[in-house]
């Protein structure tokens, strides 16, 4: 029973969706203020979701079930990540051996779900979006995993989030060392790409692909994709905080750190143009990967 409560209500689905949608509103509001506009009211993203629930669902002739089920795949896996992280922050006893790897895999699944859903609709624009998404996943996974390996090395080879938190509580955040800050910057860039935000939003590019991967979705499945995105907006910064910035995690400090990461995301989003997919690939496999490799080497040297 408590398992179900923690999965569906707190800290799982309901809580993370609410926080994510509010963070999405902060994003829209700050963007609007930066453009000298007023911006939408705080409940705008909730209203959008309710409206989408009431719309007709249009299903393409090709593959009804795959088309309808792939949004749920992404949603369920991100919910699981939110639950694992939330329980971990309440008490580190809930952490099990190897949960870093589980979270890492679960965080890849939303991208896979979008690729499946986009490819099954047989729309040419959606398939271009899906191929770009695929390339982007290949691009950012390598540096992201390398930066997490840095953390694992610094903690002495543990692959358990609870031990990572304990290590940071005893020896200070990973952020304050040379290798830690390097890996942290790399993973912030990867987070931007995982969230599909500018400058790495080539797969959804609304000016050239008209929404790209989401072009054929309407009504409920579209709402579920939006919810998945909102939850990623909550879970990914939280994951980075746990990995790199885990010292002194009182509730107030946690909120403050989350807001700082949110501000970084929004500023990067608003001050950059969209990269072409080949530029993004070159960027991630070039400088970003080298930075991550340097971080790993520094961590091995113990700096």
């Amino acid at each position, binding site marked *: 029973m408590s398992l179900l409560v923690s999965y569906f209500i707190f800290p799982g689905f309901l809580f993370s969706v609410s926080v994510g949608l509010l963070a999405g509103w902060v994003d829209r509001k700050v963007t609007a203020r930066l453009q000298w506009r007023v911006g939408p009211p705080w409940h705008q993203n909730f209203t959008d979701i309710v*409206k989408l629930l009431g719309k007709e669902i249009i299903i393409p002739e090709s593959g009804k079930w795959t088309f309808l089920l792939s949004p749920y795949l992404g949603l369920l896996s991100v919910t699981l990540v939110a639950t694992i992280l939330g329980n971990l922050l309440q008490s580190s006893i809930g952490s099990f051996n190897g949960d870093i790897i589980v979270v890492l895999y679960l965080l890849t699944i939303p991208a896979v779900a979008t690729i499946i859903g986009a490819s099954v609709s047989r729309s040419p624009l959606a398939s271009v979006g899906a191929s770009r998404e695929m390339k982007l996943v290949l691009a950012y996974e390598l540096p992201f995993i390398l930066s997490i390996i840095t953390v694992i090395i610094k903690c002495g080879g543990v692959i358990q989030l609870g031990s990572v938190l304990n290590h940071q509580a005893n020896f200070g955040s990973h952020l304050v060392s040379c290798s830690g800050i390097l890996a942290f910057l790399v993973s912030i860039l990867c987070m931007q790409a995982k969230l599909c935000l500018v400058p790495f939003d080539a797969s959804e590019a609304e000016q050239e692909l008209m929404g790209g991967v989401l072009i054929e979705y309407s009504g409920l499945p579209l709402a579920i994709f939006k919810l998945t995105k909102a939850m990623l907006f909550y879970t990914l910064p939280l994951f980075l905080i746990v990995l790199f910035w885990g010292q002194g995690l009182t509730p107030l400090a946690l909120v403050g750190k989350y807001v700082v990461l949110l501000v970084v995301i929004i500023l990067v989003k608003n001050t950059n143009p969209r990269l072409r997919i080949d530029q993004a690939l070159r960027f991630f496999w070039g400088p970003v990967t080298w930075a991550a490799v340097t971080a790993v080497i520094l961590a091995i040297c113990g700096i």
Partner: protein
Amino acid sequence: MDLRLKALTKSIWVFHLSAGSCNNCDIETLDCFTPRFDVERFGIQLIGSVRHADVILITGAMNRKSVPRMKKIYAQAPKPCLIVACGICACSQHMFRDSYNVCEPLDKILPVDVYIPGCPPKPEAIISGIVKLLTKIRSKK
């Protein structure tokens, strides 16, 4: 009024369809999203895919090429989907009425909900038209 319609009035996603316009109405439509007017305050967003649309905003005098495509796009939109005729060309074909290439007025082809006359209509006129659309949805119950 049920929750669905209430949410619809607070979050209108507009699909902008040019059916052979001179581009002037399109420019004025985009003006509504600039800092001076900023209709995103009311949850109105311009979107690229007709599958996400709540309102199709049609500009221009429909010609023989664009009418079948327009019907197709309306059929692709998820219901409830409303139609706004923006500009005098879309409302009544204006000076192109006797042209060889123009077939029939928009409301003979698709169910139009709101007419916004003007050549081009000012952004204020477009916003006032959207407000009329909202009152129409609200009075539907």
